[in-house]
């Protein structure tokens, strides 16, 4: 069984972002970039399934600028066998990415695609569901546990107020939530070894899919700032303030 894992290159989660002064977006020049943390969890899960003998091959795919090869190297250092970059210099929104990935699924014929549930830059939480729709495959979002047996995937999902378990007929789409696993530490030797693994670059335009944006970003601005608060010296004065000033209790 082959597993495909799409990965996105995003501003590292520990970086405090800067909004461009002209309001056109978030400044990503000279900023540390990393593999989207949820995608890292997806890669880890796919690699574990291969290590357990459930999967035979793990293929990582990324869409975007050529520089995105670095996150594919990270995916291969975790254990993906090979990777493909669908290169494009235009902004790719979730529907365009889903269309590109659908074209890759046609080519690679995986039985399972595991994606991160959302990217931590645009926080869209769409691509996996859209890919499932385009392929007509079943989906399980927000996975915290995946079990593969025969021709099905049994997936535990984190939902509002608890968890839910569904069984999908393969081929299927699963999106990874935080508690699916804890990705392994990428060691330097593994990072070096990943440089020898195959990384294919394909011009996204050659796949003949519609990459048009579905929205225009008119402005990116700072969130509203809260007024500075006061430090109190006792719980009793807090209760007084909450009662008389804030009228919150």
């Amino acid at each position, binding site marked *: 069984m082959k597993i495909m894992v799409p990965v996105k290159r995003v501003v590292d*989660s520990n970086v405090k972002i800067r909004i461009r002064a002209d309001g056109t977006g978030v400044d990503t020049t000279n900023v540390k970039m990393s593999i989207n943390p949820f995608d890292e969890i997806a890669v880890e899960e796919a690699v574990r399934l291969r290590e357990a003998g459930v999967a035979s091959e793990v293929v990582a795919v990324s869409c975007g600028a050529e520089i995105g090869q670095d996150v594919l190297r990270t995916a291969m250092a975790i254990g993906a066998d090979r990777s493909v970059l669908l290169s494009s210099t235009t902004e790719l929104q979730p529907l365009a990415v889903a269309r590109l990935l659908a074209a890759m699924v046609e080519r690679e014929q995986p039985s399972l695609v595991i994606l991160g549930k959302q990217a931590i830059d645009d926080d869209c939480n769409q691509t996996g569901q859209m890919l499932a729709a385009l392929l007509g495959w079943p989906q399980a979002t927000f996975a915290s546990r995946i079990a593969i047996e025969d021709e099905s995937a049994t997936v535990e999902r984190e939902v*509002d107020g608890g968890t839910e378990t569904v069984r999908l007929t393969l081929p299927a789409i699963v999106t990874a939530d935080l508690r699916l696993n804890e990705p392994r530490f990428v060691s330097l030797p593994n990072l070096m070894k990943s440089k020898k693994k195959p990384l294919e670059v394909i011009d996204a335009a050659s796949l003949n899919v519609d990459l048009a944006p579905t929205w225009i970003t008119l402005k990116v601005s700072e969130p509203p700032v809260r007024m500075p608060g006061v430090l109190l010296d006792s*719980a009793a004065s807090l209760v007084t303030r909450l009662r008389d000033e804030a009228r919150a209790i």
Partner: protein
Amino acid sequence: MTVLVLADHDNQSLKPATLSAVTAARQCGDEVHILVAGSRCDAVAAAAANVRGVTRVLMADGPQFADGLPENVAQQVHALGLTGTYSHIVAAATSYGKSILPRAAARLNVGQISEVTKVLSADTFERPIYAGNAIATVQALGAIKVLTIRATNFEAAAIGGAAQIHQVATAADSGRSVFVSRMQVVNARPELTAAPIVVAGGRGLGSGEQFKILEPLADRLGAALGASRAAVDAGFAPNDLQIGQTGKVVAPGLYIAVGISGAIQHLAGMTDSKIIVAINKDPEAPIFSVADYGIVGDLFEVVPQLMAALSLEPVRAD
């Protein structure tokens, strides 16, 4: 312009977030239809018909919708989208809405605007990006605007409508997915995303056993319990309590953060709260930068003192 709202429900009652979706829908168009796809969901359809601003309830009733499988519900939404009636399709950004709506959007060949926090016009919306560290103003381009909305940013629509309930032709079961089981956490406290007061604990609580000191405080205030990702990852609290970028977004009237340092991912889930209280022993903790009231101190001393001070207060009737 007619807007279709996808109702989130459990076949018995309408999830409160759906009322916020109706409010957002009314800001997008003049007529609001609401789709209740479920199994034996008459009570939900009746509740939806009673929401002010809803002009029609579309009831898709069948066993294939019993457990909200996205394959089947998205197919139903897709079929309604194809009728050409709808300018917008809106759902609350609950785990149900988030699973189903992007699937329906892609089938309709349009994009989705996720977690909308403000409707500026019929096609222009505000939404947080980068865990709420930036606000994007976006203009949707598709023939149908598909949106999930953040329920805490829209008031619940009032009760007191009288919409007609129409049965609609139901989409078939995809046959590719089966619901197996559900584990719902049951407690007497209010639901986290709808609670007027939230008491949330972080890594500072130190253990699952010590996390429990927040329970009497929450119960005294009629509050829901929440947790930071650090507390959930450490196993102090179950994951359905997680507040933040990847957990739940809350905006109660009062948010009491106990032993929470205030990582940006956590702040993303609670900074819209009206009043924020922070209790933390580290005066440099970022949580204090968003707090209206702060107490720097050992939470294991402050929380009992807070309980003692509250015990002198009359219990509020509402």
